[in-house]
């Protein structure tokens, strides 16, 4: 059991007082930003990227991982008490959780989501510890052609397969490509997409893009919707201790959610939406209390999706660490943190940076324990955060957005780009374009280009490397099916049902 040895070593890294402090700081901050609507882990980690110039990689990744996990816990609190999902992954939790809170069982809903998150988060982290070395062994045989094809597959899955529209998802992705290419081409030294501006030679920082899309865009969006009506905070009622019946109804849902969430998260497709929705559907089908779904709120409908959400968050770390393949905005920003240290995530990471990787994985176990404590006995503290009024909350977010952006190079040009991206972020939010593909595209496109060039250099400019290698061909075929398949399926369905009516939103 090689993994257990590594894990033991990882715990020796994570259990140093300094690293425990980073873990505590990260989980606390993560819970807070998860609770606050309008702030997410991607934005927070982006704002904290400058920390990578100050502290050791172990410390900053333990901090970031704490934020990442913490946001998942905190997001469910907001979903349950406010019915405004704090995170896209907790939309489903709001369905039943908020109904439970309204019928006076908010305490039980919070308890099942926190304990479920703990169970699934721990199982998911175990999954990372045991699956990652397997993927690493497999990935060592990858050449540049395979990496390129794998990235193509990830591009398609994160933009075209998940989400409401493949055209809009791909549009977001290509906008990310354009942003990612701004600056000097590292291989030939040619400036690209700089419009003759010297300030753009270094490229656009991922901080500016993340903050612009997530903070400024969100602020505009919330300002524009003051007529939309507000969700009321449901006062926290009911004991935080679950009854025996509630335990009995929860634990199977936790396990099923975790088993569903982790593998889907670990696929190079990622995304927590699919496993949470699947888990909800399964729990609804299996429940003996179907009448509670959609009425007073069913506890299984909170327990399952919450577990699925946390397990898939852990799963996303597998392709990120082993292949350097981020499949969520947060993972993409973590990847840029690796780049800032000059570390390339990928199979070699587990050999060259064993301290970092295993310390990080061990800290995830600790983070889960801290989080369940932070989110159950201390829940009252987080509920108070929900009472921060929107004007001051969003104004404050923008103060921090300015710090993060202006701090990069004290250039007002960065602020101009930030605000333009904020305007774009508003339009994307308003017109239902996903934002995560922009971040993933801008980080991953230059890496894909590097792998492509490497493959072409090795093959002496022969394009056939991409389809003559069986693995590469398989990945490209999967990507093609992902792109075309859903449309063919929809076409056949429509033919069969002969329902020619136009559905808005199928673009």
């Amino acid at each position, binding site marked *: 059991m090689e993994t257990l040895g590594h894990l033991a070593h990882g715990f020796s890294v994570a259990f140093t007082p300094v690293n425990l402090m980073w873990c505590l700081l990260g989980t606390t901050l993560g819970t807070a930003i998860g609770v606050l609507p309008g702030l997410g882990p991607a934005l927070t980690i982006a704002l904290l990227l*400058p920390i990578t110039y100050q502290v050791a990689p172990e410390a900053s990744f333990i901090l970031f991982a704490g934020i990442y996990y913490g946001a998942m816990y905190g997001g469910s609190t907001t979903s349950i008490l406010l019915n405004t999902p704090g995170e896209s992954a907790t939309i489903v939790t709001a369905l039943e959780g908020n109904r439970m809170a309204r019928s006076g069982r908010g305490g039980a809903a919070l308890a099942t989501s926190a304990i479920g998150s703990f169970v699934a988060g721990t199982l998911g982290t175990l999954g990372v510890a045991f699956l990652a070395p397997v993927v690493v062994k497999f990935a060592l045989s990858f050449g540049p052609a395979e990496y390129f094809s794998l990235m193509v597959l990830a591009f398609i899955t994160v933009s075209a397969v998940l989400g409401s529209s493949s055209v809009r998802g791909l549009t977001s992705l290509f*906008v990310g490509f354009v942003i990612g290419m701004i600056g000097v081409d590292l291989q030939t030294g040619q400036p*690209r997409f700089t419009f003759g501006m010297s300030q753009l030679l270094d490229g656009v920082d991922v901080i500016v893009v993340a903050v612009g899309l997530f903070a400024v865009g969100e602020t505009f969006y919330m300002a524009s919707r*003051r007529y939309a009506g507000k969700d009321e905070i449901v006062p926290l009622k009911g004991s935080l201790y679950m009854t025996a019946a509630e335990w009995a109804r929860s634990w199977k849902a936790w396990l099923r959610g975790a088993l569903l969430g982790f593998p889907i998260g670990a696929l190079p497709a990622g995304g927590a939406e699919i496993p949470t929705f699947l888990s909800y559907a399964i729990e609804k089908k299996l429940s003996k209390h179907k009448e509670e779904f959609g009425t007073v709120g069913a506890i299984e409908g909170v327990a399952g999706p919450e577990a699925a959400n946390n397990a898939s968050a852990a799963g996303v770390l597998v392709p990120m660490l082993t292949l350097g393949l981020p499949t969520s905005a947060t993972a993409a920003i973590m990847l840029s943190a690796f780049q800032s240290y000059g570390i390339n995530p990928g199979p070699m990471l587990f050999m060259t940076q064993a301290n970092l990787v295993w310390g990080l994985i061990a800290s995830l176990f600790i983070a889960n324990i801290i989080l369940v404590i932070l989110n159950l006995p201390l829940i009252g503290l987080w509920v108070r955060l929900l009472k921060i009024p929107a*004007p001051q909350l969003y104004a404050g977010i923008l103060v921090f957005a300015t710090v993060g952006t202006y701090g990069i190079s004290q250039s*007002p040009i960065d602020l101009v780009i930030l605000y333009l991206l904020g305007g774009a972020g508003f339009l994307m939010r308003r017109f239902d374009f996903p934002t995560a593909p922009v971040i993933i595209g801008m980080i991953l496109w230059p890496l894909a280009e590097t792998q492509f060039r490497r493959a072409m250099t090795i093959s002496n*400019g022969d394009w056939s490397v991409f389809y003559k290698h069986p693995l590469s061909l398989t990945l490209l075929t999967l990507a093609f099916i992902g792109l075309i398949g859903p449309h063919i399926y929809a076409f056949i369905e429509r033919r069969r049902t002969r329902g020619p009516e136009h559905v808005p939103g199928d673009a």
Partner: protein
Amino acid sequence: MSTSDQQAAQPRLAVPELLIGIGLLACAGAVAWQTLSIPVSPLYSKVGPTVFPYITMVGMTILSLLLIVAALRGGWQPEEEKETPTDWKAMGIVAVGLVANLVLIQPLGFTAASVVMFVLICHGFGSRHPLRDVLLGLILALAAYFGFARALGVNIGAGFIENQLNTVVDSIIRMLRG
């Protein structure tokens, strides 16, 4: 997305979506212009710096055309969004706050500019307690400034307020060290 259904759908033009499509097409045009202006050395023939820009250009063009087609066929706005009127005034005030920050941050420094922005954004969101907002904004901006500038070592534009406070903080630190 099948074209065979086209005659059955009631074509009603969606103006905002059409503008987005046209805007993206313009972006594709800008990408094309910038791609064509990348100088390619004839010595470097294998995979030059223009291959990926060309792929991006083609992709952007196709996607913006698909979006324009979707806009011509009724758009894709979610119903819920369509029914909520946009509060242009609130957005305008927020935008003014951002521009004020942009203009003031160099002459006045980060803290002063942030306070102005903070108050304007609060006003845009409907807060009617400007004095309280000034105070809150000041506390928050100073916390952000000292958190990032001193703890993280990020250099943020210092103005009058920051310089005064930095002197004070430095002298306190010196005093504590004896």
